[in-house]
């Protein structure tokens, strides 16, 4: 890690990623800013269409252009602006210093290539391993992620592994070059609960061992609760709230976050009528003029429909995009 980063591994400022479609410009990510400290785990939470995955693909410069385009902003990774790098320089970072795991391990592994080959490619490319070294490294990585009989199974094809095992292979591949940043996009959504628990424990353990920073993207508030230090809540391409994990769950300062938290059934609680956020997520090509959440918000007033809300800092590091952020924050405190 270089000194200029002063503990910040990644800093995203006013990032905007737009898509040109037949319906008009879709502002999938529209002016988001956040920072990630060395060794920190950041959760990005949002429903489908909130822009959480596009944000993450933008970090890796993986937005298909056309139709997509990063129209403005900066992404500073370890002191350098990723958006100003040449494609070659980006390739050097991608997979080596920043690695990703995706939701569906079946579509992100090549079904025609043996696991060994796919794992070896990474270190041969980035670490300059010869075949022998790469193979030994691949076996070691599979052992690290808990594949039994790794030496015998390294030459299997992806279809010979179960979903949980494939996700372990993906993690092995992602961690092959000891990346400084691991981006996990819904890593357990396609998996069963007991397998999800295995994978989350694994990510936690490997993170502690390698001291990597992690961005965990998910729609599941339960997953981020146990895994992250800080959370960003996204809605309609914008960051609606940002706070330390405990504070966000205890004292949400945004009506959307509050609604989201209340609409997840808490299995430890007595059951009653479940809170529901009315209506549907907005069409990103036709956003209302004021706050994009106003049509569904239980707290919205005339002002919300007219003017775009301010990004209010409630406590150091706790931000909320809402005209009534302070009021909502105060209300949440009363409820505890």
């Amino acid at each position, binding site marked *: 890690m270089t000194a200029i980063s002063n503990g910040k591994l990644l800093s995203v400022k006013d990032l905007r990623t737009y898509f040109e479609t037949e319906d008009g410009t879709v502002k999938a990510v529209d002016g988001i800013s956040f920072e990630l400290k060395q060794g920190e785990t950041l959760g990005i939470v949002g429903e489908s269409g909130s822009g959480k995955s596009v944000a993450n693909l933008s970090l890796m410069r993986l937005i298909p252009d056309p139709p997509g385009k990063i129209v403005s902003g900066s992404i500073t990774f370890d002191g350098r602006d990723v958006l100003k790098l040449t494609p070659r320089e980006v390739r050097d970072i991608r997979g080596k210093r920043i690695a990703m795991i995706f939701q569906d391990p079946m579509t992100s592994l090549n079904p025609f290539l043996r696991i060994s080959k796919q794992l070896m490619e990474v270190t041969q490319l980035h670490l300059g391993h010869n075949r022998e070294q790469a193979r030994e490294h691949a076996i070691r990585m599979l052992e690290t992620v808990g594949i039994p009989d790794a030496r015998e199974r390294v030459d299997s094809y992806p279809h010979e592994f179960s979903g949980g095992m494939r996700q372990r292979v993906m993690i092995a591949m992602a961690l092959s070059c000891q990346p400084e940043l691991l981006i996990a996009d819904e890593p357990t959504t396609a998996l069963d*609960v007991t397998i999800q628990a295995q994978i989350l424990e694994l990510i936690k353990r490997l993170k502690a061992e390698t001291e990597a920073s992690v961005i965990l993207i998910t729609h599941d508030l339960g997953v981020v609760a146990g895994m992250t230090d800080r959370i960003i809540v996204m809605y309609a391409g914008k960051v609606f709230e940002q706070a330390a994990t405990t504070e966000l769950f205890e004292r949400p300062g945004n009506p959307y976050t509050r609604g989201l938290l209340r*609409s997840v059934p808490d299995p430890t609680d007595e059951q009653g009528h479940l809170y529901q956020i009315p209506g549907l997520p907005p069409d990103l090509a036709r956003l209302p003029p004021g706050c994009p959440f106003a049509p569904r918000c239980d707290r919205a007033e005339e002002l919300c429909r007219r003017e775009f809300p301010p990004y209010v800092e409630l406590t150091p590091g706790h931000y909320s995009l809402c005209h009534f952020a302070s009021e909502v924050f105060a209300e949440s405190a009363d409820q505890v």
Partner: protein
Amino acid sequence: METSAQPLISIKDLKVHFPLSGGSLFRRSRQVVKAVDGVSLDIYPGETLGLVGESGCGKSTLGRAILRLTEPTSGQILFHGNDLAHLSNSAMREQRRHLQIIFQDPYASLNPRMTVSQIIGEPLDTFQLARGQAKKERVQELMEMVGLSARFLKRYPHEFSGGQRQRIGIARELAVDNAFIVADEPISALDVSIQAQIMNLLDRLRRQKNLTYLFISHDLRAIRHVSDRVAVMYLGRIVELADGKTIYKNPLMPYTKALISAVPVPDPKVEAGRRRIVLEGDVPSPINPPRGCRFHTRCPYACEVCREIEPQLVQIKPNHFAACIRISPEEPDIERVAPGAAPGLHAQAASSTA
């Protein structure tokens, strides 16, 4: 749930086996996937019975077999004095107006070439329940009931979001007077905020129309929220059955314990203080399920006897059933059972003679 009430549906030793064709031309292998392998279950009128389990445990197959969308291999499904498993096709069709299913994928379960009013009106035609103006009014009424504006009557499914499509699917099921609805992962494909809407809708309709649900899901939080009683399935068998609160607070069978401890709770403080039972390995294949207790390969409490004896679902506490020979009504807490002891063997023997 009143156990004295008459069950609406009574399933007895239901099996659904799928033969696998395999091997070479001359040496056919006779492998069988035992998707559902001896399930007995009563579902009472007006209740929501939650059926939970991991992928491949047979929960969807069970739901489909009850409605004869998949042919059962053996066993009985008693419904209003008929055995659905053995009805002729025409007699079965007669029963179908009382039996409906809501599917997981709201994108695949609606005909893209039909308008919403055609989709919702189709069962009215099939069962000759309403025609002309009466049918039109009924369709509108159904749309309003599920929270869709009657303005959308002439629209096609692709014009709707996932949550709205699921509402259309639900309206279609309500077109006939249902006694019993199988809801097969009805909220899994939806966003969190929409899931809450659909769960509330299903609950309201149940009370308004006195429906009975078999709610199938892998999501324990949703199951706990909507269900009166919960049945846990593992490799084709029901391994635990109790009311929702009990199964969550005080699970008895080791698999249920692990399953519940694996559910992430949306509260960082609870998460920080939790002891999680992380199971080793994957669910074994239902082609050759392990001998004895099917869970013994992953069970932290398994002993020698577990490899040999297949446990039956027996009552351990009042209205709380579990399939585990290591626990018994006298000693329901597996943590306190001596290593290797199987106090439940006695209860097993009693239940098999009963």
